[in-house]
């Protein structure tokens, strides 16, 4: 197995007296989809926000491509090539697809916006993901369906030569066909060599698309397992009770956490 592109070890985070993350270890490998699963309140979002540089953390080591980095500012992960697709997508309804994909990072020529160039790059980014559901990059986002919006949000993350992409519940609001399209897209992101992190509650999605599964239980990593060698039942057990057979936290730790 190749070296992890993003490695987090012994990360701790508290909100006041509440210790939310306990010595969390988390690895993202290039070309693989790592699913981050856990019950509500297990610390998934907190972990993502720590990596996004929004939260800050008390202790822990983060290595990106073998180098130590400190994620204390949202601009740091952006510079490293870590992109986040949040659940609410953060698209401006009144702008078109191109304008949304380049928002905040517009290409300019002589101080003025280079719309034609941005349009072409947006089209290329969508084409590289084999997106066929979007008929024009000049469509206003308000006129797009949920699946198309998700596609645009993901393509936006791809545009910037990203190396790691975090996807927060990308299929939560989608129908069957659209879920299918987005999962294909997630797989393609990884096949192109990116490290992909899929945060999801949906075990079907996770088992279908993920290579590895990292289960969080009450702020601790219960287990990090290969998706192929683990059954859905085992993962559900890891999520709900922190252990499953030989896998997971020691009973003593589980009791202490509760």
């Amino acid at each position, binding site marked *: 197995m190749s070296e992890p592109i993003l490695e987090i070890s012994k990360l701790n985070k508290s909100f006041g007296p509440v210790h939310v993350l306990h010595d969390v270890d988390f690895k993202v490998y290039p070309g693989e989809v790592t699913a981050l699963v856990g019950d509500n309140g297990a610390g998934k979002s907190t972990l993502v926000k720590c990596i996004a540089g929004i939260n800050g953390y008390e202790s822990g080591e983060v290595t990106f491509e073998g180098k130590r980095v400190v994620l204390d500012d949202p601009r740091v992960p952006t510079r490293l090539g870590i992109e986040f697709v949040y659940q609410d997508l953060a698209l401006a309804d009144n702008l078109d697809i191109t304008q949304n994909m380049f928002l905040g990072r517009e290409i300019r020529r002589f101080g003025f916006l280079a719309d034609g160039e941005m349009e*072409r790059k947006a089209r290329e980014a969508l084409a590289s993901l084999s997106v066929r559901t979007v008929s024009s990059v000049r469509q206003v986002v308000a006129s797009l369906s949920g699946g198309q919006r998700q596609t645009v949000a993901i393509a936006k993350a791809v545009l910037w030569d990203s190396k790691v992409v975090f996807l927060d519940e990308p299929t939560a609001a989608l129908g069957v066909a659209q879920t299918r399209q987005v999962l294909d897209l997630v797989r393609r992101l990884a096949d192109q060599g990116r490290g992909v992190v899929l945060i999801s509650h949906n075990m079907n999605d996770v088992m279908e698309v993920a290579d590895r599964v990292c289960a969080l239980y009450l702020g601790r990593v219960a287990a990090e397992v290969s998706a192929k060698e683990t059954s859905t039942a085992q993962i559900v057990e890891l999520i709900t009770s922190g252990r499953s057979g030989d896998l997971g936290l020691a009973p003593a730790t589980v009791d202490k956490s509760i």
Partner: protein
Amino acid sequence: MSTTTGSTAERASEFSLDVERRDVRGAIREWIDRLRGGDPGALPSILGIVVLGIIFSQVSSRFLTSYNIGNLPGQGAYIAVIGLGLVFVLLLGEIDLSAGTTGGMAAGFAARAVFSGDLHGALDAGVYWSLLGFLVAALALAVWLRTWSGAAVILIGLVVILANLDKHVFWAIIAAVGIGAAVGVFTGFLVAKVRIPSFVVTLALFLAWQGVLLFALNSQSINTSNFDLWNGLTQKNLSPTWSWVFTIVVLALYVGYTLIKSITAQRAGLAADTLQLVVVRGGVVSAIGIVLTVLANRNRSSNQYGRIEGIPWAAVIVVVLMIACSIGLSKTQWGRHLYATGGNAEAARRAGIDVDHVRVSAFILCSSFGAFGGILLASQSFSVSLNLGAGNILLFSVAAAVIGGTSLFGGRGKPRDAVLGALVIVMIPNGLGLKANLGPQYQQVITGVVLLVAASVDAISRRRTAKG
């Protein structure tokens, strides 16, 4: 050539609606599609202008005379200019109720400075030092908020007042715009940083600036018709020669820009308008511009002794400001960020846009335009009266933007809207004024009905979009 055709065909299958080369037919089809899709653009306001024109030409034979039409720019310029400023704020989903009284106050200080020749001596010491203190505080605030262009305008205004340059009309107008920018920094700070709703902030300031105007005037209105430049803003016309220079420069820039854009984009293999479309569109726009200039350059005086000819200054001012605002909004990064902030502020923030900075700069622009609008209003009414800019002024300007198609909820609107809307609004009192036996009560009822019709057209077309 065969390889490019291949890749275009392939792309066309993936993005079937992306027309690579837009010709005349394509442009018309696109426009009809937009219309069907619930984006009426400028159509309602243009229809409004045509319908009102037909009605008023029946009411009075004097309405369509070139003398009367030539008066419209001067009568409506202040609505258009204040409306242009409001578009920035409306795009954010905010409102500036104080733009009109800001204009009145700024015009009041400017008029007092010109009238007395020495603002320091003319004003009460307390008022003078309060004004300077306010400008310095706003300057510091602008620097702290890093709105550099706003800070520069305030600084120029401050220097002009300190150096007593404002006894000259030109510099007094600059100082007024500087005062407007200072008001904008203040408003923007309260809205963006202190997070008071803009409705409340500007409602309070709407009231306050009316009082400050009385301080500035020492409760005596000042006649501006003797101030040559000031009076000329809405009363004078370019000479026929300069009218042609203006028209030709504007048309040449427009045609040149679209031509260069089309050629460079085609060369780079980007989506572009065909030369055919550029030439036809440029020809139509040029023809309209040339016809208007020919009409404007004919003598339109109603008596045989005086001559009135040329494009009114007010029209030139409004057209130039509208073009500048349009470029700022559609071609610069700042404009794109303004639309994004109005559409989804959270998305803009996460995209790394300094949302507070965008908000403050919009309010600075709005108040600066408001200040200049106040100058135009004073010019049009020949004096800085004690209630300049109060009353319906601001509401007319908001109505202009809305009739033109700007949304009150943010994210949608263009500078063009304010200008076309202002034309609709100014036609009503103008047209009704020609019918001598019609009371003023009709004017407001009719203006209200027109606004309601415009809002209905907008809402109905929106609903069609929502249905898809």
